[in-house]
């Protein structure tokens, strides 16, 4: 290179040029559409008595229910979803393509429909529910367990798809190397594969958690709307909107802040793995 010998003066480099307006204009509209509603929320919030409203028992109960059920949901999705993703990515069983298509169904089905379907399966007169009731005395609907099941139904595909993608992208030769060192398939999975796809599992878990936190339709259909037991934050926001819009704004702001925190974590995850 002759960089150091070059005479002082303007550096001549090809200018990238201004981004073309047919791309910039719609992009700006898009950003505004996403940001302005949030701004409205912040502007209209009853800031003076914010502290008192946020710490009301009903709000705290709903927040606690939302956070705890979303976390349990994420754990369930990890326990069942990661092995499912592994089966889809690493084995070639008959009907694999069909199973993969079925796993994605909750993504396209309206959550309310999911709630109805869960009721038909696990409701007191449901296909499985009647036996749960008759033999074990267990009734699932309208309990916190139902909240978790409703959330798991809608959130699991996010985790499975994310982890399956990570597994497909992982270099399988590392698994072969582990096998030549005497590792059986379970050891290969836990000691080599899982650590390699951990960023993908993490991203999937965060997406899953966020989806569970925002779940509304399946929850209200299958678990109902009982304050303290099944009324999660989104349900509380919807109910508050009917009688006390200011309370709805407060609840929405809390939910927004929690979601932002999740997004920040997610971004960090992406940056770390990029």
């Amino acid at each position: 290179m002759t960089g150091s010998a070059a005479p002082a003066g303007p550096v001549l480099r090809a200018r990238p040029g201004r981004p073309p307006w047919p791309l910039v204009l719609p992009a700006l509209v898009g950003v505004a559409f996403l940001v302005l509603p949030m701004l409205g929320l912040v502007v209209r919030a009853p800031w003076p008595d914010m502290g008192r409203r946020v710490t009301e028992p009903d709000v705290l109960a709903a927040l606690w229910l939302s956070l705890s059920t979303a976390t349990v949901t994420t754990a369930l999705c990890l326990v069942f979803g990661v092995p499912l993703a592994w089966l889809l990515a690493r084995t070639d069983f008959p009907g694999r393509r069909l199973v993969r298509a079925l796993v994605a169904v909750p993504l396209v089905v309206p959550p309310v429909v999911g709630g109805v379907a869960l009721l038909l399966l696990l409701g007191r007169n449901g296909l499985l529910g009647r036996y749960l009731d008759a033999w074990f005395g267990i009734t699932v609907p309208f309990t916190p367990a139902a909240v978790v099941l409703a959330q798991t139904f809608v959130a699991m595909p996010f985790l499975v798809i994310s982890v399956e993608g990570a597994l497909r992208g992982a270099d399988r030769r590392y698994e072969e190397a582990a096998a030549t060192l005497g590792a059986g398939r379970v050891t290969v999975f836990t000691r080599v594969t899982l650590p390699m796809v951990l960023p993908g599992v993490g991203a999937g878990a965060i997406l899953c958690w966020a989806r569970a936190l925002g779940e509304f339709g399946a929850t209200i259909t299958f678990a109902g709307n009982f304050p303290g037991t099944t009324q999660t934050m989104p349900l509380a926001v919807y109910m508050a909107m009917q009688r006390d819009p200011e309370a709805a704004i407060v609840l929405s702001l809390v939910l927004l802040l929690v979601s932002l925190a999740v997004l920040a974590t997610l971004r960090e995850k992406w940056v770390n793995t990029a």
Partner: protein
Amino acid sequence: MGEHRVSVLCADLRLSRGDFDLDVALSVAAGEVLALLGPNGAGKSSALRALAGLLPLTAGHVRVDGDDHTRTPVERRPIGMVFQDYLLFQHMSTLDNVAFGPRCQGESKADARARAAELLGHMDLAGYTRARPRNLSGGQAQRVALARALAVRPRLLLLDEPMAALDVSTRLHVRGRLRRLLEEFDGATVLVTHDPLDAMVLADRIAVVEGGRVVQEGAPAEVARRPRTPYVARLVGLNLFRGRADGTAVALDGGAVVEVHEAHHGPALVAFPPRAVALYRRRPDGSPRNLWELTVDGVERFGDQVRVHLTGTLDLAADISPAALAELGLVRGDTVWAGVKAAEAECYPG
């Protein structure tokens, strides 16, 4: 070498995938290093993967120390394998990489780590036990991969292109070091390479694989001196011709006749190095050499020499000095006389 040694590895590898089919028989003695040398797609890596159990055989067998391992799953074969990019586990320290195998074989964590530390120390990596693999140089990573493969006390060591991931500048040093480490291993070693120099330096014996078959097998010096296929001849830098010997005259398949110094009868191969070829603008007088009038097909730089490709009754390459080229003034299409002394032409049964 020389004394009779028992074969550790006895393998007959046959597999077909699509229109590729591999049929290779190998036998490697204790302490011996066999190199599978061949062009890309020749099947040498498939052969290695089949030995490891990573590719299923269509037919044949794999025996190690007399035990049949044809159907043994990968994780239970008495093998250690060094992969092309070494494939060290990035989420583990160097020490844990090497301890991984012993752990899988049921050793306690302390024992596995002690063994790993000992192996790393032996490879002059004692100071790198806690290093992450990505912070190692190519040569260091290669030794960690070798230590990891040896940690399971294999009887068969497999190396897939062990030099391919290294800078050209470090190869010389790393190759010599790998050679010394391989000499210490008392099991059988099979390594795959497309680089003849790696094969010559690292191996006791070379099997040249082309199109899924072993086309030549022998000691490195033997392969270098007496190539049996155009591919091997190109690798070792010799002109090679096939023909029929009748005493010291060999009638080549193309019609030309080459005088050689050793008498043979029947199908024969003739090989001589490009630097043994002398070029003349005019027919030289009273020369006892083989002499052909040929056409210049191309001229290229080759080290500090110039390689002239000639075509005509036979195709051959001649290495001359740049000064000689300037004097001859050769360009493509020129006619030139090429001479080779009979004493330079090696003749062997074909």
